[in-house]
């Protein structure tokens, strides 16, 4: 589990009161009632936590929790001058 996913899970457990055992990278968003608005809030919180700036909060088209963590990881990589660009 990546630090980013751990950060995401931490927010979902503490602020969204979701049970940790239901939260894996493969968990589909609709299965934990995370809709596009909740994604917007989650990404915003993750930006603060990982010091990145997201260009897509509301219409990002994520399907799983892992997709969100991957997106933040790509932003971190870009910020740090890494190669990964969002495809």
């Amino acid at each position, binding site marked *: 589990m990546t630090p980013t996913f751990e950060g995401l899970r931490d927010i979902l457990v503490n*602020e*969204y*009161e*979701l049970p940790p055992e239901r939260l894996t990278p493969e968990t589909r968003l609709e299965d*934990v*009632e*995370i*809709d596009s*608005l*909740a994604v*917007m*809030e989650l990404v*915003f919180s993750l930006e*603060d936590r990982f010091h990145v700036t997201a260009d897509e*909060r*509301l219409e990002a088209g994520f399907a799983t929790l892992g997709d969100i963590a991957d997106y933040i990881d790509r932003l971190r990589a870009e910020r740090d001058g890494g190669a990964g660009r969002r495809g």
Partner: protein
Amino acid sequence: MKRVAVTGIGVVAPGGHDAESFFASLVAGRSAVRRLWEGDPGTAVLQAKEGGASIGAPAPFDARAHFPAPRRKLLDRVSQLAVVAARQALEDASLELDDDLRRTVGVFLGTALGGAASADEGYAAFYGGRADRIHPSTVLLAMSNAPAGWIAIEHGLAGPCLTYSTACSSSAVAIGEAWLRIRCGASTVALAGGAEAPLTPGTLKAWDALQALAGEDPEDLGASCKPFAGDRTGLVLGEGAAVLVLEEWEHAARRGARVHGELVGYGLSTDREHILRPTVEGQARAMALALASAGVSPRAVGYINAHGTGTRANDAVETAAIRRVLGAAAERVAVSSTKSMHGHLLGAAGAVELVATLLALRTGVIPPTINLRVPDPACDLDYVPLAARRGQDVELGMSSSFAFGGTNAVLVCRRAPRLA
């Protein structure tokens, strides 16, 4: 003109988590006024430092029982209350919402402050230097039409979705405007009502500074709001929501709906002299127009659920306005202010009090004005003091809402006749 039936009622308000428990609490003469934020160290410090108002009438409402956490975070308390009241109303109406009906049903909601608490929270953190950014959800939590929007989304309602904000008459206006649409044939079914969640330290501070809030009764906190009494000192803020299903009469009859009552009149006027000060002329005109639109004589009114805030200004003016409209019949009419028990729900007041009026007619029990022990010569009507009056055969009721900003709104309802 079409007739308008009330076929569903939903209420979450001080004293009750649904229509039945709310009305039972009023009939019992129970005050829902209490000390707020007891045991909350943050606000306790605030109170200790600043002094001032810390009483109110909270609704018995735990959002956790109604919304999963992700959704709950996106709804201000005002929207949570509204959505739950709407669920109750639709369930109560036993209305099958097919696709055709869903496309036409409208939502008409009143709120004075909307999601002001969420705006406060977001901006306080930012201005206070605790946060560099403001959460994007602040916008949708705070916007005044969020409660109506969430109701429409939850039930897939695609008719007009409108929010009225005329301070303390907001939900009376919302219900009245929905009534007009059904009456003229533009709508068949509407969800109409109001919601308010003003119990935050900031809101209470502001209202306290306006010298509108009641002082605490030193012997009984719950007796602090004393409408029409000689020793009244102001209003107590309350929170809650009420939503009604309004239905065109024939539509209700065809499906054999249970009818709580008929909405028969709506009157609007404006106090044009002062943004805060009520006038006898303005209040009387709204009442007279409501009765005229109902096509009934002022003598026919058996019960008035008064605006009755408990402020020095309103209660004397309202008494004079009732006398002006009803004339000699004012001696016989039962008038009560249920705000003595549930407090002033601002934008939700009109809806919650119309529910009290409808249920009074249906049950024949008139809820009292509690805390009315010391008479005021300027308030000399029958206010049903202290205890409910049972076994009353009342056919026609009126519910008055008079607002800061000057918008006076009065609704008239009739006890449910049998559906032909």
